C-alpha cells in the first residue's frame, strides 16, 4: 500500500511508461469496487462478527460502537485525517511524522486528479475505510462497559492523533520516519490490525474488566450472525488485500490467491485445534480461524507464494488461538471479543512472517534489504523494527487519547447498574429482539 508501489505497476505494463498519467478504466473499476468491499467490512462484517459474540443485553451497543465509529472516523478522515496521513508535506521536519494540514477537506485535490491510473478521490475513500476499520476493531476489547460518549470522543481523537500519523510514518512517502526503513506491509498488517488490536488491549486494561468476568458465563447473542460477519469480512478482504495492489493487475491476482489460501487454512486449523483440545469444533471457532488467517496474510498478501500463504495462515490461526485461549487466561485481562488476541497477535505474526516468506522477486518486493541485497535476515530485522515502532506509538498515543476522552466525559466507564441492566436498554433505549 505504499505510494512507491505504483511504479511497480509500470513494470507490469511496460508499454505504458506514462501509465500513471492516464486513467485506466479497469484499474479504476477495481479500486472503486475494492473501496466498496472494504467499506462493507465494518458496518456489516465486523459489526455482525462482534455483535453476534456479545451478550444479548449489549449487542446493539456493540453494533453501534462499530457503526458509530465508522461514520465518525470517516467524516474526520475526509476532513483532516487524509491530509495528516497523505497530505503534501509543508515542512521537512514535520514530514517525519505527518503530512500536514494542506489538504484539509481535500482542499487542493481536484476530481480529475489521478493517483497513478485511477482518481485520487477513490484513493481518499479507500484509505478512509482502512482508517475507520482500524479503530472499529479496537471496540471489540471493551464492549459491554464503556460509555458511548467516551468511545466516540476516543474514536475521533484516535483517528487523527494515532492512526493518521502511523499511516503517514509507514506509507507517507519519502522523508516519513518509517518509510525508508523498507518494511514490507502489503495491506496494513501493522498499520491497521496490530494498531487496532493493541489499542483494544489498552482500552481493555484502562477501562477494566466487565463485572462478573470469568465468574458468570457470558453467552454470545448469536454465533450464527457472528459467522455471517466473518463471511462478509472474508468477502470484503478481497478489496482490502486485492485493492492494495492499486490496480487490476497480476499482483492483485496474487493477493487474491494468498488471501483465499490464508483464510481457508486459518479456518480449518482453528477447527482442528478445538476438535483436538476441546473435543468440539465450534462454528465460532471456524469463523475466528478464518479471520485470524486473513489478518495474518494481510501484510504478506502480495509478497508470498501460495505455500507461504498456507504457512502464514495456519500459524496465524494457531497463534491467535493461543492468544485467545491461553494468553488471555494467563494474564487475566478482559479482551472481550479478542481484538488483541486475533488482530494484534495474528497481525504481528504476519508482519514478521512477511520477512521470512517474501519471495525474492524484484517485481513484487518493495525497496528494502531483501530487494536491494537479498538480505533476508536484515529484512526480518526491519520488520521487527517497524512492529516495535508502530507498537510503541500506538501504546503511548492510545493511552493519551484515552485519558483525554475519559476526562472529557467524567470517566469512561458506565456505572454498575447500567452494566447490569445492559447498555442496549440504558444507553440506546433499544432491545435486540422483540419476538
Amino acid at each position, binding site marked *: 500500500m505504499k505510494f512507491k508501489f505504483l511504479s511497480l505497476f509500470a513494470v507490469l505494463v511496460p508499454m505504458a511508461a506514462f501509465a500513471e498519467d492516464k486513467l485506466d478504466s479497469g484499474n479504476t473499476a477495481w479500486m472503486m469496487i475494492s473501496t466498496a468491499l472494504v467499506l462493507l467490512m465494518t458496518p456489516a462484517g465486523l459489526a455482525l462478527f462482534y455483535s453476534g459474540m456479545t451478550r444479548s443485553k449489549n449487542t446493539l451497543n456493540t453494533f453501534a460502537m462499530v457503526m458509530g465509529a465508522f461514520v465518525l472516523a470517516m467524516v474526520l478522515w475526509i476532513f483532516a485525517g487524509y491530509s495528516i496521513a497523505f497530505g503534501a508535506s509543508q515542512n521537512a521536519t514535520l514530514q517525519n511524522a505527518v503530512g500536514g494540514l494542506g489538504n484539509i477537506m481535500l482542499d487542493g485535490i481536484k476530481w480529475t486528479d489521478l493517483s497513478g491510473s485511477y482518481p485520487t478521490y477513490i484513493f481518499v475513500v479507500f484509505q478512509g475505510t482502512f482508517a475507520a476499520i482500524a479503530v472499529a476493531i479496537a471496540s471489540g476489547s471493551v464492549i459491554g462497559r464503556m460509555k458511548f460518549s467516551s468511545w466516540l470522543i476516543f474514536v475521533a481523537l484516535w483517528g487523527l492523533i494515532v492512526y493518521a500519523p502511523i499511516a503517514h510514518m509507514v506509507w507517507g512517502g519519502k522523508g516519513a520516519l518509517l518509510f525508508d526503513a523498507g518494511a514490507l506491509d502489503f495491506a496494513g498488517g501493522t498499520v491497521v490490525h496490530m494498531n487496532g488490536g493493541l489499542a483494544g488491549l489498552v482500552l481493555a486494561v484502562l477501562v477494566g474488566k466487565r463485572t462478573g468476568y470469568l465468574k458468570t*458465563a*457470558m*453467552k*454470545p447473542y448469536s454465533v450464527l450472525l457472528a459467522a455471517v460477519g466473518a463471511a462478509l469480512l472474508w468477502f470484503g478482504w478481497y478489496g482490502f488485500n486485492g485493492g492494495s495492489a492499486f490496480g487490476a493487475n497480476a499482483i492483485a491476482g496474487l493477493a487474491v490467491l494468498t488471501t483465499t489460501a490464508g483464510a481457508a487454512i486459518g479456518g480449518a486449523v482453528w477447527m482442528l485445534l*478445538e476438535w483436538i*483440545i*476441546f473435543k*468440539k469444533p*465450534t462454528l*465460532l*471457532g471456524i469463523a*475466528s480461524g478464518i479471520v485470524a488467517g486473513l489478518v495474518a496474510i494481510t501484510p504478506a498478501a502480495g509478497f508470498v507464494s501460495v505455500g507461504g500463504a498456507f504457512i502464514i495462515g495456519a500459524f496465524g490461526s494457531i497463534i491467535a*488461538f493461543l492468544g*485467545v*485461549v491461553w494468553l488471555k487466561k494467563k494474564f487475566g485481562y478482559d479482551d472481550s471479543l*479478542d481484538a488483541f488476541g486475533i488482530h494484534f497477535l495474528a497481525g504481528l505474526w504476519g508482519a514478521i512472517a512477511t520477512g521470512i516468506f517474501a519471495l525474492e522477486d524484484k517485481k513484487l518486493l518493495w525497496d528494502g534489504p531483501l530487494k536491494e541485497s537479498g538480505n533476508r535476515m536484515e529484512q526480518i530485522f526491519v520488520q521487527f523494527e517497524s512492529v516495535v515502532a508502530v507498537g510503541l506509538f500506538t501504546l503511548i498515543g492510545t493511552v493519551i487519547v484515552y485519558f483525554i476522552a475519559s476526562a472529557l466525559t467524567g470517566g469512561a466507564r458506565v456505572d454498575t447498574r447500567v452494566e447490569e441492566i445492559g447498555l442496549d436498554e440504558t444507553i440506546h433505549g433499544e432491545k435486540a429482539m422483540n419476538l
Partner: protein
Amino acid sequence: MKKIEAIIKPFKLEEVKDALVAAGIEGMTVSEVKGYGRQQGHSELYRGAEYVVEFIPKVKIEIVVSNEYYLNKALTAIRENAKTGKIGDGKIFVSEIIKTIRIRTDEEDEEAL
C-alpha cells in the same frame, strides 16, 4: 377441581398431548421452562472457555380437571407417555383449584372445563 402441573422433557410434549386428548382432556396450557435437578446439564464452548449450562430446557403442562376421574386419567396419560426411564423425566404436582371461569361464556367451575 385440581390443577396438574407436569414438568416433562420437551420432545415428549407431542405424545403426552395426544394421550391427554385421547383421555378426554380437552384443554391445557403449556410453557417453556428450565429445570434444575439431578440430570446433569451440558457444557458449552465459547472461544476455548467451557461453561456448564445447568438449567435444562423442559416443558411445563398445566391442566385443570374437574374431578378425580379426569385427574387419574390425566395422571396416567402423562406418566405413561413422558417416561423414558432416564434421569430428568420430570415431576408432576397436583394442587387444589377453588374456582374456574371460562371468560368467553362466564361459565364457572366444572362447567368451565
